[in-house]
């Protein structure tokens, strides 16, 4: 069973729909025991960082997520919440990835919205893909490039498109909305 972390962020169902299309069963839950016992955990999200972190802390989900040993995939806000700190609402985050999240400087349109390719990519999530495959993004904040970065993208400046640290994986783009390329990345994660 795949567990999708239930929290205040929106459009969690689209991740579940993508898993159904790939033939995987999942539950949307904030129950610690269900999260701990699942084979894989997906931590999705569109929303605002400080209110999302507050929701997680109030339910003790911050500690649960950090204690997980199975593969975990953060998506979009999920990736940002797995960093140390976010400028959005001046939020202290989970700190899985040793990097910070900043607002794009206003020199081009914000949010970064639409399809973009990676400048670099490596690791398990990107098996079978090339940097020419476009992925769908919608975000105004970005994670700075760090040693955890496994894929980079360029919009206004180069930023982390994906990160990995041990069993924790995360993507800034939305694999569940990125057509076949996104499905391939989800499949790579599910087959870890």
């Amino acid at each position: 069973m795949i567990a999708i972390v239930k929290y205040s962020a929106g459009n969690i169902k689209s991740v579940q729909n993508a898993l159904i299309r790939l033939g995987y069963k999942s539950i949307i839950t904030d129950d610690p025991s269900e999260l701990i016992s699942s084979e894989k955990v997906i931590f999705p999200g569109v929303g605002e960082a400080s209110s999302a972190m507050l929701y997680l802390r109030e339910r003790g989900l911050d500690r649960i997520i950090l204690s997980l040993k199975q593969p975990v995939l953060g998506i979009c806000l999920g990736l940002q919440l797995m960093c140390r700190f976010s400028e959005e609402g001046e939020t202290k985050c989970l700190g899985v990835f040793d990097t910070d999240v900043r607002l794009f400087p206003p020199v081009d349109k914000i949010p970064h919205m639409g399809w973009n390719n990676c400048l670099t990519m490596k690791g398990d999530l990107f098996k079978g893909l090339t940097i020419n495959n476009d992925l769908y993004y919608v975000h105004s904040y970005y994670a700075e490039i760090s040693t955890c970065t496994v894929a980079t993208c360029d919009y206004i400046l180069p930023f982390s498109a994906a990160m990995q640290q041990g069993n924790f994986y995360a993507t800034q783009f939305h694999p569940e909305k990125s057509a076949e390329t996104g499905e391939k990345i989800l499949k790579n994660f599910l087959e870890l």
Partner: protein
Amino acid sequence: MLKRRIIPCLDIKDGRTVKGVNFINLIDAGDPVELAKVYVKQGADELVFLDITATIENRKALAVLVERIAAEINIPFTVGGGIDTVNDVSILIKAGADKVTVNSSAVRRPELISEIAGQFGSQCIVAAIDTKIIDNEWIVVVDGGRTPTELRTVNWALNVEELGAGEILLTSMNNDGTKSGFSLDITAQVSRSVNIPVIASGGAGSMEHFSQVFFNTECSAALAASIFHFGEMDIRELKKYLKHQGIAIR
């Protein structure tokens, strides 16, 4: 590099696509989900579904349709038509819509945009602006273009950005349905003035029209309906053409 987007728009009435379609091998040509799947296969970057009836009974049919779309479509989609309240939005988002679009109701009550942005985030709210030249000036019109307002289009665009809209869908009613090309004038003015993405709409009739709007304006996407529905233009062919012109396209 961020790509310019091509967005087919489907008009929905009672859960069915309104305009006729003549794709070969489509089991049910009036089923928006079947049509949407064809567009996804052709390489559409996003989809917009507009409920043109938008009565209370139809709202339920729309929510059911949105659930079906969300289950079967693996690219982002926007739903609009008759959205007046945050509750209307909540139903559509819960059903699986990625974004919603508001038009006349936001002109009447601009706070609707900030209420939606506050609850669901700016990325969720597309402000649709219909515009027309009246006495040599681009003016916002509502009720499907029938009712002129006092608002100047660029000012209203800046206003919706300030209120928290994440994107603008700009339709020139002077060009809509003419197949004579997008309005480069107002599209350039609006896309230069705001710092959020602008979708150009109204007037697409040929592949050159798409390259013109991408070359001459800072729009992030271009939307069209009938030329795609009637099979006059294949999205694959269009994207091949635009790439060949040197435009960043997926």
